[in-house]
């Protein structure tokens, strides 16, 4: 079964610093990967997704992620974070016959001034 592992439960970082949130997936013939963000007291929203093609995927709010098949990773990066990026970030993969999303346990990004 498909699964994802988010290696860090919490990531504190100072404003304007770069950040990387790590995600590894279980290997499969084909894989579709997603990053979602959840701001406090809200539902999740899509940041970006990888389906095929270019391994570097750009998303909203200046985030990008790189699909690395050899390392089975899909890490999320931003070169300079803002206070407003404070949120919980979820990596997800499509699994199961109905194409349901399977989420990782989440990484809480805390941006400090």
């Amino acid at each position: 079964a498909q699964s994802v592992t988010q290696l860090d439960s919490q990531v504190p970082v100072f404003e304007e610093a770069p950040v990387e949130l790590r995600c590894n997936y279980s290997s499969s013939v084909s894989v579709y990967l997603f990053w979602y963000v959840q701001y406090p007291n809200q539902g999740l929203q899509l940041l970006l997704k990888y389906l095929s093609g270019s391994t570097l995927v750009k998303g909203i709010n200046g985030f990008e992620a790189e699909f690395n098949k050899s390392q089975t990773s899909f890490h999320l990066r931003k070169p300079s974070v803002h206070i407003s990026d404070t949120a919980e970030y979820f990596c997800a993969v499509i699994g199961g016959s109905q194409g349901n999303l399977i989420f990782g346990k989440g990484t809480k990004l805390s941006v400090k001034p």
Partner: protein
Amino acid sequence: DAGITQSPRHKVTETGTPVTLRCHQTENHRYMYWYRQDPGHGLRLIHYSYGVKDTDKGEVSDGYSVSRSKTEDFLLTLESATSSQTSVYFCAIRTPDQDSTGELFFGEGSRLTVL
């Protein structure tokens, strides 16, 4: 905004009582989902629906049932609530319908506390 409304948004109940959470959508999407979110567990799929009266179990379906008698409403029922079902419950729809890699749009969540 995918037109998803969850109700109630907050509920406190006692162990052993039945609870029904409602998810209402206004855009006629075929796929609807119920997830629960717990600290340290992320989101876990409870049940999903791929059409009226077409539902299936997710990874944490024990203790939950669902019904979808019309396209716009997807109900999640806890027949006899337990403290382990204290959680935040999210409904989601998928768009576009025919795309298994489509985006999920989430409601704002229903916070349930079982005493």
